[in-house]
């Protein structure tokens, strides 16, 4: 029913925009990762494998990548645990207050990411709220200094930030479970635990996968929380990229790391989508 002209008008402008501002930049990132920089700081546009060679041979890069993945994995685990149980409570046990609780989960998302990370810094610091509170009630005599500037602080803050993000898809998938399936399970004599493990959990797998991907991917690429709260032991892979694009001035090497991250992220999305399709409820 739509004419050719109409379809051209709705298709061509967004197509051009996406090509210029998304496709070309990714292609440029690819090119940069094969270029190099000389001592004078000029970027040499001849193709070389130097950057990838450096990534594979210098342990600092893959060690930091592994540490970032370990931090991201912990964030994913904790935000899924918190998010899933909360979503389960809302969807199956909250009754009439469901919508109110749902809004209460969303509202923190409206407070700036940066500001919430900063708030954790004021809580966890040596003179922070938590340490002074513990001393005030005489639980500790001296401030605990492992709270801030550690991977712990980064995991805690990122879990705080991504729990609502993982909650949302999980809640959506729980809400889509036909309630008569749950009733049928009860009627056929299953205990609540059996119903949970055999009916509810398998049907919420698509939501769990989406939430897990979100939490893992977004925390893997984070560089602000580690800068603010991580200290030297909480440095993540993106912090290396930031310094390569800044003071260290080696864009090509930075581009190579970014491209590896991009590839890793795309692979994760791909696998999570495949699994989601496999588990999705028809």
């Amino acid at each position, binding site marked *: *029913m*739509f004419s050719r*002209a*109409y379809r051209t008008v*709705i*298709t061509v*402008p*967004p*197509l051009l*925009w*996406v090509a210029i*501002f*998304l496709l070309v*930049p*990714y292609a*440029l*990132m690819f090119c*940069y990762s094969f270029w190099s920089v000389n001592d004078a700081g000029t970027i040499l546009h001849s193709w070389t494998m130097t950057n990838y060679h450096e990534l594979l041979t210098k342990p600092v890069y893959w060690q930091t990548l592994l540490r970032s993945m370990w931090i991201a994995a912990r964030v994913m685990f904790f935000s899924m645990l*918190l998010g899933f*149980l*909360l979503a389960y*409570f*809302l969807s*199956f*046990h909250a*009754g009439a207050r469901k919508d109110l*609780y749902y*809004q*209460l*989960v969303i*509202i923190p998302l*409206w*407070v*700036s*990411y*940066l*500001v*919430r990370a*900063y*708030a954790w810094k*004021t*809580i966890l610091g040596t003179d*922070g*709220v938590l*340490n002074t509170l513990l001393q005030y009630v005489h639980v500790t005599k001296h401030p605990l200094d492992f709270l801030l500037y550690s991977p712990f602080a980064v995991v805690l803050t990122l879990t*705080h930030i991504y*729990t609502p993000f993982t909650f949302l898809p999980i809640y959506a998938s729980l809400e889509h479970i036909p309630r008569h399936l749950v009733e049928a399970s009860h009627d056929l004599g299953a205990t609540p635990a059996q119903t949970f493990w055999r009916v509810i959990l398998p049907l919420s797998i698509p939501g769990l996968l989406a939430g897990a991907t*979100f939490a893992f*991917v977004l925390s*893997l690429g984070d*560089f*602000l929380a580690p800068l603010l709260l991580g200290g030297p032991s909480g440095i993540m892979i*993106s912090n290396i*990229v*930031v310094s390569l*694009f800044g003071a260290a001035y080696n*864009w090509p090497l930075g581009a190579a790391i*970014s491209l590896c*991250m991009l590839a890793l*992220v795309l692979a994760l999305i791909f696998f999570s989508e495949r699994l989601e399709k496999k588990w999705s409820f028809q």
Partner: protein
Amino acid sequence: MNGSPLWLKAHALLVFAFLYLPIAILILYSFNGQGVGGFPPRDLTLNWYRILFNDAAIWDSVLNSLLVAASAMFIALLFGIPAALALDRANFPGKALFRRLVLLPLILPGIITGLSLLMLFRVSNVKLSLLTIILGHGTALISVATTEAFAGLQKLNRAQEEASLDLGATYWQTFWRITVPNLKLSIIGAALLIFTLSMDEIAVSFFLIGRDNTLPLEIWGRLRRGITPEINAISTIIFMFSLAAIVLWYRLRTRAEVTSEIAAELVETAGS
């Protein structure tokens, strides 16, 4: 609620405490005369708000952020809505790739979007400024406009558009009189979301910043120099504005739902 295990309720309570604790502390200490840490808070004061209102650099950055958010919203809607229409009703080579590319910035860490655009601007000799941030936010947030508008289009009854075209309206008239009014809620929702996401965005802006700071970058710069409750004060004010926006959005949506329900009833009554 009855029959739900106690531990599940306790867990929910704890998660809410975990989500709200930093926000509560943030607001509380914006009134604390003794700085950002220290328990118990003492010397409640409005001093930090007074300092904040005389802080020209912060308000400049707020204006910059508002400008960026409004422009990014315009770009994202201008290209995101047609993108949703194209995904809904046009077939072209590379459609699957296009869909992926449009939605990619939603799931990618901001650093990748920011850096790839930085390289584009470097290669094409564009000087970094608020304009480059606007282009960055606009591009990243097209994904939001497209998802929202596409969801709206799925619910749209296409017979209305067909009828409009059959009755001799042009595509342009049909778009403005049928498609847009039907997508109104999705578009307003997307616009609000894009605006707030842009106001808060820092990972992409971090790499595309010129001389003028946006609010998050101004805050970031201050955090690196040392922290004062002035940051708590500005965050509290912005949180209040966001809350007002949520309430407004809810009012709008509830009213629209009520109106459409009444309309549906009227149609039914007229038909019977």
